[in-house]
């Protein structure tokens, strides 16, 4: 089957070298770096001092760290269940080709081609306490008492950031819709003849047929929850009083303060949580989804 390759050895190596060099410097070395540095006390200049697991121990006694982990889990569940649930709901509706479904599909996906930064700036304006459209709308319809300093109050800040993220369902909706569209129409025709109503059709035909893609989408969405950074950084930078902090934000702050050891212990925590997440998802809801399902 394969072309005899011994004489090609030179070319094989040459073709792989650029990839291997980049992969080594941007994946192998960085992972080694964070694992090793997480056991050091180091400001990047001074002589590093070995402190063992000290950073991890103090992390788990630190209120901001624990709050950030908790918020990451809130993000993970909001993305994995709320966003994917809504995306699947809309995908099932659009798969039945209602009037204008192609147009709606295109509009729902639109935010994904706009950068998160621009979207976040727009929401910062919408949530703004002085001139933001949300407070103005509430005032206009006589609900003045519901106005808030959305991003500045303890109770509303985190929900406000989460809402502007999980209701953008387009990305996952498209993935799920593509999968639903591959189910042969004949299955639904047969069910229709047997007297199954729409709900029964969706529950007994569609859902089982798209289970794998749902698990993939959930895994991806949850991974995004763990890696969340942009919207929070731009809307609140973790505030008020760290109420919206996540591990990514905390990591950035530690790195800015040149606390390499602490920063790396947070990085290591992120990598480990990511692996635990994959293992848990695989051993519970989906056994088939492969490592290669994930993108950055």
């Amino acid at each position, binding site marked *: 089957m394969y072309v005899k*390759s011994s004489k090609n050895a030179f070319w094989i190596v040459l073709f792989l070298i650029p990839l291997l060099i980049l992969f080594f410097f941007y994946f192998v070395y960085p992972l080694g770096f964070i694992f090793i540095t997480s056991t050091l006390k180091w400001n990047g200049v001074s002589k590093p001092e070995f402190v063992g697991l000290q950073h991890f121990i103090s992390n788990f006694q630190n209120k901001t760290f624990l709050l950030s982990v908790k918020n990451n889990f809130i993000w993970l569940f909001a993305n994995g269940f709320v966003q994917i649930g809504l995306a699947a709901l809309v995908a099932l509706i659009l798969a039945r080709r209602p009037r204008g479904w192609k147009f709606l599909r295109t509009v729902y996906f639109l935010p994904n081609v706009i950068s998160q930064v621009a979207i976040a700036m727009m929401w910062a304006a919408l949530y703004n306490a002085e001139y933001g459209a949300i407070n103005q709308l509430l005032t206009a319809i006589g609900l003045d008492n519901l106005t808030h300093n959305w991003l500045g109050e303890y109770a509303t800040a985190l929900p406000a950031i989460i809402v502007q993220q999980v209701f953008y369902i387009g990305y996952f909706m498209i993935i799920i819709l593509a999968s639903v569209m591959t189910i042969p129409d004949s299955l639904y025709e047969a069910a229709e003849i047997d007297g199954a109503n729409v709900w029964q059709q969706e529950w007994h035909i569609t859902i089982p047929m798209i289970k794998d893609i749902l698990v993939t989408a959930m895994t991806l969405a949850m991974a995004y929850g763990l890696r969340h950074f942009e919207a929070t950084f731009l809307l609140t930078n973790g505030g008020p009083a760290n109420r919206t902090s996540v591990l990514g934000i905390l990591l950035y702050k530690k790195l800015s303060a040149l606390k390499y050891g602490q920063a790396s212990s947070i990085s290591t925590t992120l990598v480990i949580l990511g692996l635990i997440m*994959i293992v848990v998802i695989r051993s519970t809801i989906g056994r088939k989804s492969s490592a290669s399902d994930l993108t950055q």
Partner: protein
Amino acid sequence: MSIVRTNGRGTTQVLGNTAKWVVLIFFFTFTFIPLLWLLISSFKTNLELQLKPFAMPEIWQFANYANAMKISGLPRLFLNSIIVSTVSTGLTMIVTSMAGFVFSRERFPFRQGLLNLILAGVLVPIIALMAPYFRLTNSLGIYDSLWALIFTYTAINIPISTFLLYGFMRTLPRELEEAAIMDGTGFVGRYWRIILPLTKPGMVTAGTFVFLFSWNEFIYAMLLTSRPAVRTLQLGIRFFTSQFFTDYTSMFAAIVLTMLPTIVIYIVLHEQIIKGMTSGALKG
């Protein structure tokens, strides 16, 4: 053609229909109205923004857009983003198509192990690598240059792009090359003249993904540069609040301008873009 996947019968139909449209309209509103609000507000005076939030602008303030261009330095930001995205996409395509060719067409020791290792790279939360990327960029002497971003984006996209291109090349029939080998085509010729042209659709998909990733990337653009001259568009937007200070509507105009090119391209090429962006998950 038979009528398929109908919408049920009788009262369930009415109920289901109403619920269906409530859902569809809710998400349409959530996605579209804020963008429309931003667009309309960007033509208002700041006073109008505060006092008549839901009225049309009395006089459409095109001056906001002139202000936006003047204050934000948009042309520079766009140019930097175009350079970074184009070069890193090109590099990623070259590096991963060469590797994909070797992985899919040749047999050598540790082939599967090496491939699995590269593909496992997609599992690494890239955000966790801030500290090492910062150190690495400094030691390479490219901190605060566009090269810092070009190398970083190229490298970050290696696992996903290898995955897509390897997956595509693997499906190409071997017979194509066998005829060429008979004709004396060498290793490079097989890659350049036979496999690469056939891989074009796969490269378009992977390239779209990498380009949009690079275009929208923010964290490393912030971490690995500091001079205004090398700011990309996404990083530039972040500084709008300080640049425009209290001139909100001109700032809105600047934000609209940053969104416009991608939206226009999306309107023209939405099928391709959707495919490119979702392919990472779809192939799974």
